[in-house]
């Protein structure tokens, strides 16, 4: 089988296993949509101030949950699945076959990206139908897609990197959630940062990639200012993740 065909086949098998695993399908797929409905139902009539702009909270959550979906599909899902496969000995077995490592892991990344895109599409359709979300088009759409691609790739790279810090699959949920949940809150993904948000929270948020990525998503759905700086910060995190992953990634269970 030639390389592109093998790659496509591999993505298909990842996809099959993905949908048959109730936990991974539920947590990465249903969670963001469920949160969207819950948050918008609970808080949908409030107002969010983004600089001078005031948007309905329900619209805000379309952007926020898109960001959340991408982080879950690419970071959380990749980190958990890869740790699980490593502990199960799947990765070690793969290493003993002729499939190139980049091809095997790349198929998983591409699958994560596809899931992220699908989730963003669903969130968008949902948001447009019920919550007056602005559906990006033209240049806004192009910029939005650049941010989406850079974000998804970077979060996947970080997902691989964090596996080096996870001793075994029992510890995976704890480590992954501890690394991502606080940042989701601090970055205003679950609770919007208002004008009264303490400076230290904004300061921390700006260091990490989630806030920047969420701003990119907002620019698409809410028509806020798009900053290439945000893309850059997310990209730098992605590259750092990739370097760490290449250096510390383990194909064998940790003893």
């Amino acid at each position, binding site marked *: 089988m030639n390389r592109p065909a*093998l790659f496509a086949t591999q993505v298909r098998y990842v996809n099959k*296993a993905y949908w048959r695993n109730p936990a991974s399908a539920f947590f990465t797929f249903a969670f963001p949509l469920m949160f969207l409905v819950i948050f918008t139902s609970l808080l949908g009539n409030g107002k969010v101030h983004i600089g001078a702009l005031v948007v309905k909270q329900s619209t805000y959550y379309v952007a926020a949950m898109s960001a959340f979906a991408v982080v879950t599909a690419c970071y959380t899902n990749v980190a958990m699945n890869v740790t699980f496969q490593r502990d199960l000995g799947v990765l070690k077995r793969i290493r003993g076959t002729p499939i190139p490592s980049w091809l095997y892991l790349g198929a998983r990344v591409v699958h994560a990206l596809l899931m992220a895109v699908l989730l963003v599409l669903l969130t968008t359709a949902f948001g447009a139908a019920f919550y007056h979300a602005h559906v990006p088009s033209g240049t806004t759409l192009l910029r939005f897609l650049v941010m989406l691609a850079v974000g998804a790739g970077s979060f996947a790279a970080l997902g691989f990197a964090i596996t080096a810090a996870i001793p075994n699959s029992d510890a995976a949920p704890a480590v992954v959630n501890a690394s991502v949940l606080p940042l989701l809150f601090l970055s205003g993904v679950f609770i919007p940062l208002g004008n009264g948000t303490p400076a230290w929270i904004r300061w921390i948020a700006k260091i990490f990639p989630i806030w920047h990525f969420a701003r990119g998503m907002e620019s698409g759905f809410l028509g806020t200012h798009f900053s290439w700086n945000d893309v850059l910060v997310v990209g730098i995190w992605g590259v750092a993740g990739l370097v760490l992953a290449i250096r510390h990634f383990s194909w064998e269970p940790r003893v």
Partner: protein
Amino acid sequence: MAVMDRSGSTAVEVRGLTKAYGELTAVAGIDFEIRSGEIFALLGPNGAGKTTTIEILEGYRQRDGGEVSVLGLDPGTQAERLRSRIGIVLQSTGVDRYLTVAETIAMYSAYYPHPRRRDEILELVGLEAKRDSRVLKLSGGQQRRLDVAIALSGDPDLLFLDEPTTGFDPSARREAWEVVKNLAGLGKTVLLTTHYMDEAQYLADRVAVIAGGRIVESGPPATLGGRDTARAVIRFRLPPGAVLPADLAVSPVADGMVELVPETLTATLHRLTGWALEQGIELEDLSMARPTLEDVYLELTGAPGAHHGEHISQEADRRRRRRGSLVP
């Protein structure tokens, strides 16, 4: 490294192989050779260095010293080329649990340049009936046979099986053994490790007994430890007060048993039973035996059974203690 005949009289050649983990020497200079088409077993207790050795040959671990050639390649530097020609069953390993048996084999087959037909593989490992079952629904024995199926998917010349049946119940082991025998029928070369003596005896053409990182003995299972030429031992219980004739020199062993190692078995047995009949004495528990592979193994690996865990049967342990030491 010696250039090897590719048409293959020798599949694996190992010379002076060493490997240490920090202070611990896991493999302390071993040599062996596996001929093409042969089933070769590395037999030894836990911690003997079997996995270390086999994973060096597979290209997973780097050796510290010595020369290794697998299908004419050096696994230390040419692992990539080697991988399409070998099949690996690791000591502990998993697969994606949500794919079916058939899907799993198809997925792995796609990695190889010349895969083997899937139906053939399913038949070889006896999983035809399970082809559409999800992996997570398989029993332990069936999963292990799937491991072998995956290792076969690239139609390799050489298969590595690291403890293929450890933890199996007797019937699952029998089934796994038949699968390995089938491989030999296909002309595959097999290197397997085991700590079961009966497994080595049943499957292997040749066995190397490894203990403490050294090969202490090797050869066909029947001749291991000089077993074929070892003299038989006659053992019995002598009633209190009975005195044997002087030419029948026995040595006492535990439980009031005595044993004697005759030079001429038939004549000695005749002499002994003749004497007993004459005296009207019943020789209780009279038996005669050559050392079993188990005896040889225990002697060679030089440790009481309790230290190695489950693989040494109580029976063997009892026999060993009773006998005191091995003949000859």
